[in-house]
């Protein structure tokens, strides 16, 4: 296939989806600079693997690549944390993009709590709740069955709430 065409397509996808992909990677690894690098790798990898793209959902396809790259990164750099399926403890908002500094208090609480839950929970919550992928799309990206997406999301939200409670943020209305 014509390399210029592929390059053009990658550029177009970048314009459309780069913010989404950056958000996903950033929320998974919590490192702004590294997330930028991994996003860059994602689009270059997409160029390399363009022959495997077959008129499917481009966003989902790019997210699959982004996820593989992110998981590879986690494997290499945070093996123990990843094994135990825990994120490194995020105590505040250090090392984050400027824009996040202005988060509302409730969102900041959520952001911190999200960083403390299991990787698989975080993964599915980001895709479903923040990136608004459908269950089918999320299942495709994660390589899971839809039932697993549902049950993991359910448990993830539960754990997220518990985490918020633990931090004293949630005061259930009785």
């Amino acid at each position, binding site marked *: 296939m014509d390399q210029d065409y592929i*390059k053009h397509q990658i550029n177009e996808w970048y314009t459309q989806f780069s913010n989404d992909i950056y958000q996903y990677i950033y929320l998974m690894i919590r490192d702004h600079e590294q997330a930028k690098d991994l996003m860059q790798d994602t689009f270059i990898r997409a160029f390399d693997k363009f022959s495997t793209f077959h008129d499917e959902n481009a966003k989902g396809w790019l997210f699959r690549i982004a996820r593989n790259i992110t998981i*590879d990164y986690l*494997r290499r750099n945070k093996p123990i944390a990843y094994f135990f399926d825990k994120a490194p403890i995020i105590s505040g908002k250090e090392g984050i993009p400027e*824009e996040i500094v202005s*988060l509302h208090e409730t*969102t900041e*609480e959520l952001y911190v709590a999200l960083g403390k839950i299991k*990787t698989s929970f975080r993964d599915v*919550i980001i895709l479903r709740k923040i990136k608004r992928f459908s269950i089918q799309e999320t299942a495709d990206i994660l390589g899971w069955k839809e039932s697993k997406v549902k049950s993991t999301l359910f448990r993830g939200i539960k754990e997220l709430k518990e985490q918020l409670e633990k931090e004293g943020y949630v005061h259930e209305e009785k």
Partner: protein
Amino acid sequence: MKKNEDMDKGFTELSEKIVLTKSEHNEILSNINSGIDQKSTKNISKRNGGFPYKYYLAVGAAILLLVLLVQPSFVSFIGTSEKSLTKEEALIIVKEQLQIGMTEDEVVALFGSTYLEIASAKDDERMWRYDIEPKDGYSYESADDFIDATAMTSGEINMYVFITWGDDNVVSRFGALYLNDEDGRLYHYQVYSDGDETETRELPITSKKDPVSITGNTSRNSTVYEGAEYYEEIYTIYHGFTRPVERSEDGNFLGNPRMVSIGFSDGTEETWEVLIEVVLAWEDSTFIGKFREEDEDIYFDLDSKVAELLFYMFDGYLHLYGYDIEYEGEDIDPENFDYHQFDHPEFSFEQILIDYVGEDVFYEWFHSIELPERTMTNFKKYFDLSDGELNKAFFDYHKNYPNGKPVEG
């Protein structure tokens, strides 16, 4: 945060606020395009570099043609399916010839066609496993990307090479696990899909029967990583250990869950169960230890020691990262587990204490009584130790080994 709606609003805000600046976007896009341009115009060799693609092809084709013309037996070499590579030969091939993007035929040309088709335990990716220098009669069949650590340390097999195939049926990742004769340790060489390479020395598995001294590790022999024997070890550390109990929502006992998701290196589910249970324990633990820096001798606090052992059992060997805990195919809700006794100080003995009284007498006492009696209170009573003496033992230890106790042997 009071309501679910607040959480939804938070998700939305996160989605809106986490954005890159225009200049960051421009920089990244420019980098991407440079990367693409380089790939389009330069070499195809990611790892060796500097060899023009067209030139490479032309020269390769010419050499092949020449060889085919003058040396017909070369054809049989290309097609040779059996190869008896030594560990050294295989390592050179892995490090210098095997490349991301190679086809199956190219890999077969390097390693032969005697491989085991397996799948990665984590992602179910299609993989090949080559066993290098196995002893006569040795075989280890696993459908997953596991290794037979016991056989490696006993010399029955010298190396495993793992090839991971991508969607397009070309090599997407590869690695080799091998025993380094110089230091007797297992090394793990890996090349990732982006061409990055890593090589790690996997502690503390050794080919020698060296003692490994780790806080809280009651086992001091190399069988520490063998499945069944590992059970005993963990059991000993957390001798107050009760298997996680599954309970219904109203707290009724439902039974001990049987983890059936996967086996461990020797294939026994029993071993896996124990490991999983330790992981469950971890869910409720706090990281209080330290991680090993590269080439640092290891000595860990109880909690991180468990992490360390599991890490070295899994990382690079079993690729089980992120595995969900399953019970008869269903995910288990950790909430339904009762693992309150894990890490309970009354039921945990650090190796420092065991060393202090002497391992032999410790175990003599330990095994002479029933589980519930194996408490710190009874330990102090039996050995007639005061808290002050115990504190001194810890103090002396840390004074003598400020950076952790070196691995012996």
